[in-house]
């Protein structure tokens, strides 16, 4: 688990400390959003909103001292993304609304990336979200567990299975 507690407490009072916090988490938040939203415009728009929310949350003491800051920050991010999709889609009556950049959004041009995007498309949204939280957001298992309201062991196990699935499929396709 991260231990930014001193910096976070200072960030409630000191704009420089908040700026340091922003610098520390900007890339992780942006990467996560980019992978969820699939384009720079929306990723930037929501990144700005999330850090503004985090700033206000810190100053208004919505964040509990001693809490898990990364989990709190990414819970804001997930709520913002949910709002974004709710607003954009008007709750389509779908069982598993996809939040990846879409059926047809092959994400990059290289063969390997295209192969990976095909494999990721076979995963359900929850597994893709775990991958994003772990690798784009850089969250520890315990932090993901807090976000997901699950045990750390369960998160670790599911992520392991997901990676193993990708490995098996990759090897099957590449001999």
């Amino acid at each position, binding site marked *: 688990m991260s231990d930014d507690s001193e910096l976070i407490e200072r960030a409630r009072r000191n704009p420089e400390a908040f700026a340091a916090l922003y610098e520390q988490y900007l890339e992780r938040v942006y990467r996560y959003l980019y992978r969820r939203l699939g384009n720079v415009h929306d990723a*930037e728009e929501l990144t700005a909103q999330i850090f503004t929310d985090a700033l206000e949350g810190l100053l208004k003491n919505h964040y509990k001292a001693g809490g898990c800051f990364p989990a709190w920050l990414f819970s804001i991010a997930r709520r913002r993304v949910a709002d974004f999709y709710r607003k954009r889609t008007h709750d389509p009556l779908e069982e598993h609304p996809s939040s990846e950049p879409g059926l047809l959004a092959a994400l990059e*041009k290289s063969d390997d990336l295209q192969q990976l995007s095909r494999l990721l498309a076979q995963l359900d949204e929850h597994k893709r979200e775990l991958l994003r939280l772990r690798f784009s957001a850089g969250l520890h298992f315990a932090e993901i567990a807090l976000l997901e309201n699950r045990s750390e062991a369960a998160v670790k196990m599911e992520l392991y*299975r997901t990676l193993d699935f990708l490995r098996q499929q990759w090897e099957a396709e590449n001999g």
Partner: protein
Amino acid sequence: MDKMDLTMPPELDATLTHFYTVPKPDPAFAARLDVDLRRRFDELSAPKVDPRSPLMRSLRARPALAFLFVLVALSLLVGAVYAVGRLSGFIPGFGFTSGTADVYVLDQPMSASLDGITLTVEKAVHDGSRFWVQVRRVGLLEERGAAYVDSSVLLPDGEKIPYQMAGNLESGVPETQMTIEYPPLPAGTESLTLRFTFMTSGYELLQSMDIPIVLRPIRSGELIPMPPTETPSLQSETHDGLTLVLEDVAFDSDKTILQVGLRFDSPDAGLAGDWNVVLSDETGKSYLLLDISPDVRDGDTKLFQAPAFDGSEMLTLSLVMFPYGEDVPVYTGVADESAHFSFAPGSDPQPGQHWDLDETLNIADFQLHVVGASLISSTELVFEFEQVDDLTGVMLFTSNSLLRGSGGGIPNQNGLFTAGMTFESIPVQPFDVEINRIYYTAHGPWQIRWQPEAAPVQASGLPTATPFPTGAVYATPTMGSPSSLSYQVQALVQKFEASLLQGAGWIHSVTVQESHMHPGQILPPPYLVTELWVEVDADGYVTRSLYTDRDENGNVLQQSASAGNYSINFTTGDAGYNEYSRYLFSTDLFSQDLAQAEENGIPIQQEERTCDDGSVCLFIAVSEAVSFQNPGESQATTEVGRRVWINLETGQQVKLQAFAYLADGSEQIEFTREPLLVEKLDSPPQDVLDIIAQVEMP
């Protein structure tokens, strides 16, 4: 890339790393946001400073001092936030207080013992309106001949304050705790003595025990202790081990805060999915509930902001879990050591091999019947279970060291459900399969009926859930260099929508969608009719709306309404601000897919075709090769895509289809969506307005 003990092929490892970590924010964007956040920081602190004060003016002239001033202002701000919370009686993420003054809490627990009885003051809170303590008693009072306990506060000046309310400290158990409430203490009281007096059944004094305690102001960021509930909360009937509880309510002149919780008979139980509540009155009117739960949440407790009530309403709070209705999925951990069975794969298990099994286990109130197992790959074993009664799934485990993962139940269409286990390699020795979680259906309804208090006339300052956003216009992302086809499609969209968006009014549309149903699929249903009423302003922006999804028999599956920046989904209970922005009405179903296809070099087919009604249409299809197999289906999918038919004369997108090709070359239509009606009216039917009017603003 984290390997989690997996050895990943180097190319996959590098690709995953690239995929998930390479996107980086543009430095110019990062710098702009940094500046914006600093400005926002200043804005948030600015209201605490009188800009007209001479001090501020002198600070402007002396920038070297300004930073120090900001620090002081912010340290005051932290206190100010708490002051707001205390005044309100509610602090998001903290809970309820009822006071109007400073909050003092117990500095440290204090104990005293006498003749085998130990009393410990574990919590104490004074919030200006009341003083309450939580006391733990160890030792049997009855052995000392005591039948009653009296309690009072002794202040340093000798004043004695008797208690107002208390739980039962005299029960015949060796250890218990209770909460005692006293009238408010004089402001600033920091030290006092709690006196407990034991009496016989004839109210004769036996002995007294004094416990001095120290109170201190609550610290910044500190959780305000909550008293345990002595009186039963408002709660629903318990069904299948689940109870809906209205844990707390706070009333203000313009809003009401509800703390709602789920209670399970088993500590390892939970709902298998997100839950919500809806609030309605006896007339059927629904009330907007904003979920204002703290960000670091306990999944079984939620906080909602509701409108203020006049006290005459008879309200019903109902648990909803879309799309399950009153039959909700529940999971619970299995602690029963007998919940396991042995499985012998044999010395040379092969992918595709199937084993018939016949094992019956009794788990909780359920019978679990294991009927088979299949090796679906060299490492994945899938067990099949008979779906009996309300048992819908299991999670499996084995202590065999080759285990790498396990998955929960997937219902089949033949009355079975499955649960998989993945191994590094399939064990060749018999091993025990343990059931460590079961999933079942609990049957409601879970409803709480109660009459709220009338909202106080004077505002007490309960915090508003979210600042009302300003209506920034959302700019639709545009492609880097749209093609002539994209321009043509957008031009056709504009052509069709020109009359719809000319002037303020109401747009009424009805769309039908027919879907292929996959095994285990619940939504969307095979036939879905969506009716939409949208009010647009003169610029085409949506101001009010009503969406209704119906099945083929006209039953409402989902209904949601919005008014301004608020929306409520009457079916799922979701409600809140549409925080993002205003948005334009659009009938466009395909431009985004087309843009993505163009951006990514995906093949696009276009041609003129004759539509079903004989009109000339522009037909566009985009598709790409894939390789996956849906659970429970016999064939892999090899290609997926979408196609649209656009009437070239009207510009209307008259049909949208999602399709797939299977391994045998056959085509499968995933869904077909067609508009049945699109019209512009001056006003909708009154019943539409009545429903939208239910979007009560908090």
